């Protein structure tokens, strides 16, 4: 049954209407690299020095905006696609219950996003380094890619769960998800003290910034220098806690929402 559940997740991740969203990650990485190449040719900047910083800036955009947005939308799709495609009835009238099919879909989406965001940051890193003329010591700072991939994997799992939670608010789910990433998460990152840990962006950026101790690096996240990040341990602990709380809420809601064909909290 577990394999069958994962197969449903796999099917949804690749074949459903919103399957394009994780594929946008490597596609956008290629676009960013192209922009860097174009800028590099048009301006005669010193080819070597700012390469890592440029990479950091672009990867910060991935971490703080692109991946969160794609992941919440994809998370919304985990339930909404089944509701809108009228296939949820097949999953929820089986002995596996209501939670497992959606958990399996979330799990598979995590793997897909994890792999594709890893590929995206590799494309970004290698592309930018080559564009800036860094060839011989390309692998010197390659550990940064590892940290960014790990941060994206953790971040995507939280944002996917958040999207799944939003999906239970019916047709407004997409608007809610976009509003959260663009406004709420951004504002939470500006909160003072411990409260800023409520921003998932801060958590993922902090995980990524853990690679900042690597030799020869400057402030890794130029775009958010004004924001105070948290330590690796704090970030990991908060990520675990957030994920647990999100799934607890999802679990309770899935046990209570009604999905009748005509009127339902989750269906209408």
């Amino acid at each position, binding site marked *: *049954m577990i394999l069958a559940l994962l197969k449903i997740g796999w099917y949804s991740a690749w074949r459903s209407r919103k399957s394009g969203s994780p594929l946008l990650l490597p596609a956008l990485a290629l676009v960013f690299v192209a922009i860097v190449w174009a800028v590099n040719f048009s301006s005669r900047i010193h080819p070597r020095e700012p390469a890592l910083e440029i990479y950091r800036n672009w990867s910060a955009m991935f971490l703080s905006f692109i991946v969160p947005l794609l992941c919440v939308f994809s998370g919304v799709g985990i339930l909404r696609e089944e509701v809108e495609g009228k*296939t949820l009835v097949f999953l929820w009238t*089986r002995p596996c219950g209501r939670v497992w099919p959606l958990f399996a879909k979330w799990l598979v989406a995590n793997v897909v996003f994890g792999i594709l965001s890893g590929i995206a940051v590799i494309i970004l890193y290698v592309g930018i380094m080559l564009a800036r003329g860094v060839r011989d010591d390309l692998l010197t700072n390659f550990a940064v890619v590892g940290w960014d991939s790990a941060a994206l994997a953790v971040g995507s799992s939280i944002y996917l769960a958040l999207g799944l939670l939003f999906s239970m608010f019916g047709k407004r789910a997409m608007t809610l998800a976009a509003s959260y990433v663009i406004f709420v998460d951004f504002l939470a990152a500006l909160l003072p003290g411990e409260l800023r840990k409520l921003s998932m962006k801060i958590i993922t950026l902090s995980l990524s910034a853990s690679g900042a101790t690597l030799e020869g690096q400057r402030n890794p996240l130029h775009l958010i220098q004004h924001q105070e990040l948290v330590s690796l341990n704090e970030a990991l602990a908060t990520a675990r806690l957030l994920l647990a709380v999100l799934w607890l809420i999802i679990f309770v809601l899935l046990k209570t929402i009604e999905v009748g064909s005509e009127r339902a909290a989750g269906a209408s």
Partner: protein
Amino acid sequence: MTMRNRSQFENQDGAIVCHGVSKWYGQVIALNNISLEISAGIVGLLGPNGAGKTTLLELLTGRLRPSRGRVRVFGMDPWTQPQVFRRVGYCPDSDGVYEKMSALEFVSLLGRLSGLSAEESHKSAVARLDLVGLSRFTHQKVGTFSKGMKQRVKLAAALVHDPDLLVLDEPLNGLDPIARIKMIRVLRELAESGMVILLSSHILAEVEALTSHIILIHHGNILAEGKIEEIRALIANQPYTYRIQTDDPRSLARALVMVPAVESVEFDLENSSLIVRTAEAAALCKAVQELVCKEGHMVTSLAPLDDSLEAVFQYLVK
């Protein structure tokens, strides 16, 4: 097709037991204090659109929670105990299917979600697709299927784990006449094997072709439950209507108006027949028999017009 020995599942309670079940949405009452018990055979759930049929099926399949009352399927609450779905197959009315899967993949996958092993599920899926007449299309994408074929693949998916109870929402929708006849045959065979089948429809002839055991539902209330004939007999204050075909309608009409049991006689000269209303069907039949034997009237047919579900339903709704 291998059938499980269903006697092991015989339950002292019915397969479906609803006790005082109500379902409301705000101030709208979808079901009002419904109690019913279904234990065997094919049962037709009948009612016009909006009567509450789908709400009842959704309560039985755990998609909705009753606002009041108790729903039990094989003694379990479908809202809180999804394990009951090992014994329940549900074929929804909606067109939704995993369109990019092949029919075999789709049915087999749902078999595995119902707890079958990969091998069992594959074998059962092949057998069920064959049963519903889709054996030639097992590797075709479900998205390319016609509405009728989708209906059949959904039935195969509902049957893949060999359930003891089959719940069907408008199962004959979209089927062409030949597929309809085949589907009716399949459902009858399943019922004969011991499967309990509950099917909903707003098309009375569909249900009539499958079963005489019906539940009539209207505005969230059960109007009547039982055999069509029994329900018809309950409507004592409504006259029975018969069509009598004869070669001499005028002469027979003159004789019939003298029979005390006859309430009215109408001519249908186009069809060379009489429409006769009576409160006592047996007395009318006996009188007609006597008129034929003793007075030499030629009667070619005597048939009730309103023993059909349509008539019964119209009477009850009035």
